[in-house]
Structure formats: C-alpha cells, structure tokens
C-alpha cells in the first residue's frame, strides 16, 4: 500500500508545471470560497447580533400565543420574580422584564401613536443598547419613577425637550382608560428609524400601574452575544418554565424577527448558487487534467497491465494521484483563505456605500469574517467531493484498456 502512495506521489510530479497549475486552480478556488463564506457568515453574525442587541434580545419568554397576537391580556404573571428565578437557575444575568403597550402620546402641540415599553430600569441595559444610547438627559432611574425616555425623531416630531411633560393615553389590561403624565428625562438615538420614531420607555412599575397590569408583564428578554447558543438556552428555559406554568414559552430571535432570518437564508443560498458554479468550473478543469494524464500514459498502463497489474489497481492509482493533488492544494488554499479571514477579523473590512446598507440592519460599517468549522471547511470539502467524482471518469476508462493495443499506443 505504502508503495502505491509513493508511486502516486511520484506520478504527480512527473509533469510539474501542469500539476502546479492545477493545484493553483484548486487552491485559489478553495481560498476564495473560504474567504467568501467566512465573510457571509460574519455578516450574518453582525445582522443577528445587531438585531438582537439593539432591543429584541436573543430569546424572549412570553405567554403562549403572544408572538402572533400581541394583546395586552396575554401576560406573564409575577414576571419580575420569574425573571429573578431564571437569572438564578441559568446563571445568565442578561435578563430583563418588559411590558408592551400601545398608546397615544401627546405634547401640547401634537399627538402620535407609539409603542410604550415598561422596562426594568436596573436590568434593561443588559439586554438592550438603548439605555446606553441616551443622547441627552439620562436613562430611567428606578422601577417606580415617574419618568420616560423617548426616541429622538419622536421628540422632534412632538416638539418636546428634556423636562417637558407628555401625556400617555391608551387602554389598560382590564380595558380601562390608561393615562399618565410623565416628564421626559432622556432622549435616545438608536439608529433604527422605527424605534427612534415610535417608541417610548417608562419604568416597569409605572407601566403596570398605568395600564392596570398588577405584577404582570409581556416578555422576559434574554440576551446572549453568541447566537449559536440559541437552542441550548431555549431548551434550558423550557425546562424551567414547563413545570411552573405550561402557558409560558421561550421564543427565539428567529421567530421574533423572521424577516432577518429569511433574508439571511435567502442570501446564503444565493451565495451557494454562485459557489457551486465556481466549483463546477474548477471541477471541469481538473477533470481535463486527469484525463490528459491518463491518456498520455496509455502506453505505460499497457505495460503495467502486461506485467500483471489489475485494471482496478491502476484505477486506484489514478484516484490516489487525484486525492493527493486535491488535498494538497485544498490544504494550502484553505490556509490562505483562513489567513485572509484572520487578517480582516483583526483589521475589519469596509467598502464604499457600506455604511448606508449597514444602517438598515443596525450593523457597524465594518464586516469581520467568521472563522469557524463551517466557514473554513464546508467549501473545501465540497470541492474535494466534486473533484473525486470527476477523477472517477478517467480512472474507470482504464478498465477498457487492452494491454497489447495500449502498448502500441503512442
């Protein structure tokens, strides 16, 4: 066996230039795909963390059905003590309770319909970047404080400044009139147009009192920067919730914001469409090389057959040559791809016009590629499979050789 490998290795280098050129094609393809997939996955990571970090969180505990029918009455009872329990049992601290309502908010001059969010003032900054994006004034101070923070565009539309009072008017959980007058203590600018234009935040206890919620709330938001931990954390949460209250469920970011998930999937599959075309082109060029190397050695194979080699063994030899060449080239190409990814991971990659596109998804203007098993190996392994299938054709051709005719071949 060992001899056969050595044999194959020597055969590869009999035509150095051709081998090197083929290896370059494979290696370049591999490097390109490793880099592109790494870049794509890195971009998706940014999209996910951008959309979860800003406000929605990675996972939310909600009453079953709230996701599709966000009604005031679909609540979690004793939400704050449940959140405390979850913090304790999961050892994850980035958890905060929220209550969501809709109300008219009006200044002296104008009125707008907005989302009113009741937040746990102490924990909100762990699950959302909004408390850190206060552009003027300060964030909410205590769970029962009479305060509110509003988005910058909304402040502009309502023509209010810090300290001005705004009136909130909506419907409470029991259908009663929910009304409050609260001063603006802070103005945030999240970069998300929708949030900046149509959201106000007030302390959770103030919300519960205004909207007749008692100790109920609508969501327990959990943030974790590693979106890959979505499923394990979700099942851990389900394990805590199930025995307590079967009406509560853990909902992942992909369900809360299905649009982001769909656009990622669409982009990834259209990316792979291009990669498969690229791989097919590489494959055909390799197939050509192998076919050439078999055809030009017809005479040699004829002699080998005459010496008593079985056609199967010669076929194996050709496959071994293909395998060595491809693996060798793929290893180098993949290493180059990973190095490029690593370079941009450290230095960041940005290009013109990026900022505007990035703003739509609340992403930073630089992309950092992802370096993972998927980004580094999925492309090369696909190339390997394709090239080995391509090498099968010349290898099988050998079975048709007749020793005497082959030896006469020039």
């Amino acid at each position: 066996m060992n001899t056969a490998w050595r044999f194959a290795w020597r055969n590869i280098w009999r035509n150095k230039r051709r081998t090197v050129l083929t290896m370059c094609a494979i290696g370049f393809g591999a490097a390109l795909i490793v880099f592109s997939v790494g870049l794509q996955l890195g971009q998706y990571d940014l999209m996910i963390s951008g959309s979860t970090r800003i406000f929605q969180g990675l996972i939310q505990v909600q009453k079953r059905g709230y996701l599709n029918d966000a009604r005031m009455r679909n609540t979690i009872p004793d939400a704050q003590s449940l959140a405390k329990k979850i913090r304790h049992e999961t050892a994850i601290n980035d958890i905060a309770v929220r209550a969501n309502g809709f109300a008219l908010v009006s200044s002296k001059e104008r009125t707008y319909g907005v989302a009113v969010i009741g937040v746990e003032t102490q924990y909100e900054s762990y699950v959302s970047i909004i408390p850190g994006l206060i552009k003027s004034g300060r964030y909410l101070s205590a769970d029962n404080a009479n305060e509110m923070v509003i988005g910058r565009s909304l402040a502009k539309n309502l023509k209010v400044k810090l300290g001005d009072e705004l009136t909130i008017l909506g419907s409470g959980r029991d259908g009663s009139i929910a009304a409050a007058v609260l001063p603006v203590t802070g103005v945030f600018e999240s970069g998300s147009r929708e949030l900046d234009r149509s959201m106000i935040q007030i302390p959770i206890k103030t919300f519960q009192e205004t909207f007749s919620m008692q100790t109920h709330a609508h969501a327990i938001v959990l943030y974790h920067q590693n979106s890959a931990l979505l499923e394990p954390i979700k099942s851990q949460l389900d394990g805590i919730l199930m025995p307590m209250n079967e009406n509560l469920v853990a909902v992942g970011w992909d369900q809360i914001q299905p649009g982001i998930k769909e656009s990622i999937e669409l982009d990834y599959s259209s990316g792979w469409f291009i990669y498969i075309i690229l791989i097919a082109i590489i494959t055909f060029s390799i197939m050509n090389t192998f076919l050439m190397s078999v055809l030009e050695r017809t005479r040699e194979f004829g002699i080998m057959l005459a010496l008593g080699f079985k056609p199967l063994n010669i076929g194996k030899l050709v496959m071994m040559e293909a395998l060595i060449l491809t693996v060798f080239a793929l290893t180098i190409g993949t290493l180059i791809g990973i190095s490029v990814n690593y370079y941009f991971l450290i230095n960041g990659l940005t290009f013109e016009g990026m900022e505007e596109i990035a703003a739509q998804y609340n992403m930073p203007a630089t992309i950092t590629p992802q370096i993972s098993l998927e980004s580094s190996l999925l492309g090369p392994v696909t190339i390997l499979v394709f090239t080995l299938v391509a090498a099968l054709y010349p290898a099988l051709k050998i079975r048709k050789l007749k020793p005497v005719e082959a030896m006469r071949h020039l």
Partner: protein
Amino acid sequence: MRHLVIQIFSFLLLFHLAVSSQAETAAQLIRQAMDNYRGLSSYSEASMTIHRPDWERVMSMKVWTQGLDKSLVRITAPIKDKNGGSLLIGDNMWSYAPKINRVIKIPSSMSNQSWMGSDFSNNDIARADEIINNYTHTLLETKKINNRLTYIIQSVPNEDAPVVWGKEIITINDHYVLLKHEFYDQDNILIKTLTASEIKKVGDKYISLKQRMQKTDHANEWTEVVTTVVKFNVTFNKNTFTLSNLRNPR
C-alpha cells in the same frame, strides 16, 4: 336608420335617468336612516359590553348628539373611568382622562384604532356624516323581512374618502331603521358586522335599542351597546359640545 339612432339615444337617456334616480334613492335612504337614528339632537344613556373569550367588561355612558357631526360621550361607570369621555366635532375627536385631568386630541391617523377597547373604531363612533358625503350608494335589493319592506344598499367609498373599507352593505327597513351594517375590506372580505335588534317606537319614530359589533374572524369577541334611555329633539346648553364641558362635566 335615423329613427333607430333616436331610439337608442332616448333609451340611453332613460336608462341614465333611471340609474341616477336609483342612486339618489339609495343615498336618500341612507341619509334618512342616519337622520332617524340621530335626530336633530338626542340624549341617550347606554351600557356597552365588551366581550372576550376570557373576560368581559361593562361600561355605562351618556351620549349627547346634535346633527350628524357633533357628539359627546361620557362614561358613568365603572368608577375607575367615571367622567372620562370623548367629544366629536366633524373630523375632530378629543378624549378626556379624568385621572390625569387632560384632554387629548385623537389624530386622524388613529381613526381605525379601537374606541375605549371595544370592537368599534374611533371612526365608527365619529363619522356618521361620512357615509352620506363620501360614498356612492346603490340599491341592491328590496325585499320583505318580518312584513316590512327592507332595502339592501351597497355603499362604496369614493376614491378620495379617508376610509379603509372596500365596500359596506347596509340593510335598512321602511321605518328607516338600520338593521345591519357589514364592513368589507379592499379584497371584498367581510371584516365586521354591526347588527341592530330590539326595535322600539320612541316618540314618533322607530329605533333599535341593541347594537352588536362582531368581528368576522373572532366568533367569541363582540361589543354590544344597549340603549336604556333615549330622548330626541332635546335642546342643549350651547356649551355642550365644547372642550371645557368635556373636561368639567356639569
């Protein structure tokens, strides 16, 4: 030949006259139903039940109306919301919350939001005159229901009408009582139905004392308004339909 042209022409003319007079009839019926329902002015007391699968809420209220474009609603129970209310003048709507002692103007962009958490939208409460001015009416059918002549009218909002509906089907009897009002969306799907019942003679006219708004896709969710007291052609203090009256009930 010439004879034929004249014949066709006169036929078209007649047809046109028939159509326009028919449209006028339908519009007149709607107008009379609205006039009948609201009168020149009215005062009424009513209770509103909002029903949901897991809860129910009952509110009591007093309602003052004048013409088709002015009304004032004041809540009398439950205690929590007592003295809260809404004032409507033409296209404008204001709400008052006693707890914070503020009047808020409801922007027209909110006209499809629920009124007081019920299945009625702000628009349903506010715009009685809109259906007269901004719609094209066609009489679809005339038939006898419970021995009364009943008209079924299709009302399609004009292009520029500020409404979300694709069409509305209104059933009116010959006492000008609105029996049924169906709201269809732009895709011709029935969204909600207002049904009137308990028709009584009050003074010299007939009105329905019970009205129920039912959303089509939630069988177990409805809002019912039952009128307990009603008086027509009442004279009001001229302050009645003002913001200060909304804020400080006397």
